[in-house]
């Protein structure tokens, strides 16, 4: 009895003592750190005045844990990046590699397991002085999940010298392999079209070939049911995907935007108007 009354307040005392020494958000030890290592890396070993420098946020995730794509799907949240750049430097948009479908029927999320590099170009001013050391920093806010989710926040920085020419950094290879997962513009010979038909969007990809099984990832939330099966049917010169409309979609959408990933692992950008009229065409 005595023990119980002693130990509980002691536990509370210890817990509050630990709390006092907890680091502030953004510094080293926080619960999310156990499940993801985050680094800010550069493709090149120096800053060249006026020339884009590719920087990347590398997520190295513990087994079974994942983080999210720009459209996280049915749950979760995409990482957010806030740059702290030297005067005159400008950061471009994050380039999102295509995600994996993380399925928990009847729902699905879009995200990354194992590793991902979120890269962005940063342009230094043309008049940057050679020899100067410049500090580039960023705050990353992210969510990592397994079955449970933990939010994290990390302050990252990188210092590089301004030089007239740059060589590849040791991280250069990571950028090359990450680029293979970035969606490219669709080849000019392809014809992509989308139509709204009842409870579905019909996405036609006329590529000249019919032997491929693509997967569509919507860029915007609540346009299609993420967890629904994407049935494919063959067209003479391509393939047709049947995408179930989201029940949250109450109005017609003017465009369907997303990424199409072929069985080969090649990804292409889809950004097409959605025709509302019923198209006459051969029945499948």
């Amino acid at each position, binding site marked *: 009895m005595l023990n119980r009354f002693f130990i509980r307040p002691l536990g509370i005392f210890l817990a509050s003592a630990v709390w006092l020494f907890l680091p502030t958000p953004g510094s080293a030890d926080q619960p999310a750190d156990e499940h993801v290592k985050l680094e800010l890396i550069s493709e090149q070993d120096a800053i060249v005045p006026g020339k884009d420098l590719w920087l990347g946020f590398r997520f190295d995730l513990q087994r079974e844990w994942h983080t999210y794509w720009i459209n996280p799907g*049915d*749950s*979760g*949240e995409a990482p*957010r990046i806030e740059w702290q750049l030297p005067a005159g430097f400008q950061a471009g948009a994050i380039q999102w590699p295509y995600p994996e479908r993380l399925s*928990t029927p*009847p*729902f699905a*999320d879009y995200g990354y397991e194992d590793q991902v590099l979120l890269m962005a170009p940063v342009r230094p001013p043309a008049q940057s002085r050679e020899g100067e050391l410049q500090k580039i920093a960023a705050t990353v*806010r992210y*969510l990592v*999940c397994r*079955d*449970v*989710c*933990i*939010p994290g926040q990390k302050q990252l920085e990188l210092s590089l010298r301004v030089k007239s020419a740059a060589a590849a950094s040791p991280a250069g290879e990571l950028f090359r392999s990450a680029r293979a997962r970035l969606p490219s513009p669709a080849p000019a010979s392809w014809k992509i079209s989308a139509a709204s038909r009842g*409870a579905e969007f019909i996405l036609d990809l006329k590529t000249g070939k019919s032997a491929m099984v693509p997967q569509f990832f919507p860029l915007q*939330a*609540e346009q299609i*049911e993420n967890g*629904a099966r994407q049935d494919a049917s063959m067209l003479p010169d391509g393939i047709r995907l049947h995408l*179930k409309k989201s*029940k*949250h*979609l*109450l109005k017609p959408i003017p465009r369907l935007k997303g990424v199409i990933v072929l069985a080969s692992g090649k990804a292409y950008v889809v950004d097409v108007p959605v025709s509302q009229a019923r198209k006459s065409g051969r029945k499948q």
Partner: protein
Amino acid sequence: MKRNLCCSLVITLFLISSAYGVKVGESAPEFQVTDSNGQVHKLSENRGKFVVLEWHNNGCPYTAKHYESRNMQRLQKEWTSKGVVWFTVISSAPGKQGYVTAQQENEYLKAMNASPTAALLDPQGDVGRLYSAKTTPHMFVVNPAGVLIYDGAIDSKPTTDQADIASAQNYVSQALGEATAGKAVSVPTSRPYGCSVKYAH
């Protein structure tokens, strides 16, 4: 024969649509669930009142955002005092994050000073699946005629940061405010944000 075909089509369509949960503008599906005090609640017993359904998981950081800031408790107090029925629904399966016994839930409600009309325990996930509840929180508003008028996020800032609450547009208060004033709900759906509901699989 023709008539039979037509009816079976209607039934099939109904089944397909119900597999994806209820849609705004349709009748909210009936449920019968026991609350943390052992009392049984049916949605249909609340005809004539607005009903809010709040999906909940006490271990989820998005739920914590709205409880530790007292935002959810403030909403519960404000709207129940105006005659709205507020059901907190817990669909976490036993052994999963957010699963609670009736006693644990009552202790939580007391510790958090939360005042929903009732906390409904749905460990089998039946009500969650019926409504296609995706996240915690995921909010639904049913009007006095039993029609679903809002399905989506609690507000417009999908983060775990409490500091975002003040500048966020609260879609639940907006829907209730507009509907109680006899106006159309201007944002009837949105992407619910948060942790996935920890259903039994």
